[in-house]
């Protein structure tokens, strides 16, 4: 299945794109999608402990299962205000 990955701020700088499309095996979790992204872009790995995630523009968890066509966002620590 295909998922869309959204990246922001420094994460976007690291990968060079705010939106990527990737293959993921059926039943994959958000965490598994993140791990394969880190394998592709090792510079992302320091963010492992500090990022959060969203699925289809709603706050989610790394343990959540993703479905075909989902939009998965990885959020570095936020700094609004």
């Amino acid at each position, binding site marked *: 299945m295909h998922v869309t990955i*959204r990246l*922001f*701020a*420094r994460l976007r*700088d690291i990968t060079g794109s705010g939106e990527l499309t990737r293959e993921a095996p059926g039943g994959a979790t958000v965490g598994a999608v993140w791990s394969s992204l880190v394998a592709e872009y090792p510079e992302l790995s320091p963010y492992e402990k*500090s*990022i*959060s995630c*969203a699925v289809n*523009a*709603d*706050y989610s968890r790394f343990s959540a299962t993703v479905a075909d066509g989902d939009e998965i*966002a990885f*959020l*570095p*620590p*936020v*700094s*609004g*205000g």
Partner: protein
Amino acid sequence: MIALTAITAEPLDAAALVRALDITGIGALTTFVGLVRDHNLGRRVMRLEYEAYEPLALRGLELIVQEAAEQWPDVRLAIHHRIGRMGIGEASVAIAAASPHRADAFAASRYAIERIKQIVPIWKHEYFEGGDVWIEGATADPDNVEAREKAMKIACT
């Protein structure tokens, strides 16, 4: 009609935000406006560029309004956050809180800005004299009870 919550690339207007609130029965109104500061951590800041995951950022603002309503049922809150490029002194965030009495308006307003910094997916890219850096603050997790309690404590002291 002006939305109570918004993520916008347009300059913020605190007076317009106030007009978005129903002031029936209200005796106190606070507005908080966050500005782009000319210095940060010893750096001379030239400008900021704010980026957001817009649909989730809007959801985050709505969640903050809901949380505030649970704590202060009589408070009416409006929050607008600007994104894009902003110069020194420009408003990046505006919060209006209306309440029958002042204590709750001040508290809800403070709670809202603390929660924005904790959970709303917005990022500052700071351009300072000699370089640029993405500012990274809190891991955005609305279910983090400790963070929410911390924001509440700050708001109520």
